């Protein structure tokens, strides 16, 4: 009996050692699955979207086995830090703020943010310049921000929590607005359509995608935003690696591999092709 249990214990131990080894080599990629067209889920719960397909392409280029796992947006970076997965591909913009905590690969796609309102709202007639880059300094930027400040004073604006859009509204650049924070973009859209919030701020495609799928009269207003608080494109988020430990080395290697793979994918036109398929325009970078 004792011999038998010893054999079983050692077999189990061997199994876990082997399993651990093979798992360690797999790259786990975390995505939200709730931010179409970047990443979302189909009716059966399967992850789909631009980043899901791009992740598969990049893994094929790296010749690496990957699994894509789902993670709520508000716990995305903590989950990465706690090694629940090795990389984030979730429409996450590269910002100074996030770079303090994690690394990013080079950007693979970029697209602008925009305010959205319901047709017929008092904000729907807001006239501004077409696009606003916050990385530029000058009278034009200030003039547009002042226009927005006047139009948005006292309004309630919905954003997804922990996003560049929330940071921008809370930075004071557009004065004092009531920022209402939601767990997912879906909920922002629902409350915009219900009239609980006066406007919403998110990636422009998130609204056009919602308008197209739901048939609700959601319209974009004001300028498209980029630069500054809006970051420098969307990249793969990866833990900061170092050469002092095995796991640190692995993280550093994953970053290097992703950068190389993105280069290759860009040259082959894979990113452009996927972007046009999902966004309707070439959002690759």
């Amino acid at each position, binding site marked *: 009996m004792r011999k038998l249990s010893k054999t079983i214990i050692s077999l189990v131990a061997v199994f876990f050692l082997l399993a651990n080894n093979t798992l360690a080599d797999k790259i786990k990629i975390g995505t939200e699955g709730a931010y179409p067209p970047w990443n979302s889920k189909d009716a059966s719960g399967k992850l789909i979207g631009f980043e899901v397909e791009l992740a598969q392409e990049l893994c094929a280029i790296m010749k690496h086995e990957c699994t894509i796992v789902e993670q709520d947006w508000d*716990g995305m970076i*903590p989950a990465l830090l706690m090694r629940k997965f090795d990389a984030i591909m979730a429409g996450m913009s590269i910002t100074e703020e996030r770079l303090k905590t994690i690394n990013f690969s080079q950007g693979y796609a970029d697209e602008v943010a925009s305010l959205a309102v319901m047709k017929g709202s008092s904000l729907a007639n807001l006239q501004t310049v077409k696009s606003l880059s916050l990385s530029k300094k000058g009278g034009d930027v200030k003039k547009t921000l002042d226009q927005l400040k006047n139009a948005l004073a006292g309004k309630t604006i919905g954003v997804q*929590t922990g996003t560049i859009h929330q940071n921008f509204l809370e930075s004071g650049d557009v004065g004092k607005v009531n920022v209402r*924070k*939601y*767990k997912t973009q879906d*909920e922002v859209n629902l*409350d915009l359509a*219900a*009239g609980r919030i006066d406007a919403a701020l998110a990636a422009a495609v998130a609204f056009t995608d919602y308008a197209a799928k739901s048939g609700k009269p959601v319209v974009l207003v004001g300028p498209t935003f980029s630069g500054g608080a809006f970051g420098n494109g969307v990249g793969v988020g990866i833990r900061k690696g170092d050469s002092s430990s095995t796991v640190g080395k692995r993280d550093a290697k994953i970053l290097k591999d992703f950068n190389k793979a993105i280069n290759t994918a860009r040259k082959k036109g894979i990113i452009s092709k996927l972007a046009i398929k999902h966004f309707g325009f070439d959002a690759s970078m």
Partner: protein
Amino acid sequence: MITSVPKLLYATLITLKLLSFSIIFGLFIGLIFSLMRISKNTLLNKISYYYSYIFRGTPMLVQLFIIYFGLAQLDWLRESFLWVILKEPFWCAIIAFSLNTGAYTSEILRSAFQTISKGYIEAGESLGLSKFKIFVTIQIPVAIKQSLPAYGNEIILMLKGTSLASTVTLMDLTGVSKFIISTTYKPVEVFIVAGSIYLFLTFLIHSFIKYNEKKYEAK
């Protein structure tokens, strides 16, 4: 981290506000439905029974979502005067929480009313008290005493239940904790602080109920 403490304390006030509003409304709803339940009128009885059956049989999160996101889908409702209340996440949460705790409270009170021994009522009758007098001076005080332990439990459950308010954009203790985590990326530390605050509030509620139990026992 230190700078987050005032934010968490302010959020604790929101949590307490949610709790006190829903407990007060819930007690009122619970009292009415428990009386309906012990009444001899079959219709009132059935209404009360199904109300409590539905609200105890479904998750509070689902009830909150139906009230917050579900009702907002109805165009006629958005054009009615009710929208003034339903537009606000705070009142949606209060409605959901009150209806939920109301269902549990009605069951707690019902069982308390039903287990009052006949002797008490007969004693009142032999003194020539009216039915109403018996109800107010005998049945209600005895029922309160009997239901205190279970009701204290319900308040503590509701305290923890208020954390669901964060799912409809309310910045209560849980909502603010999640928000702080989304900027500091330190879930363990923040949740430990938030958890300690909830624990402390539970301690206060527990002590209050214990104190009252003793008080009633002494009588």
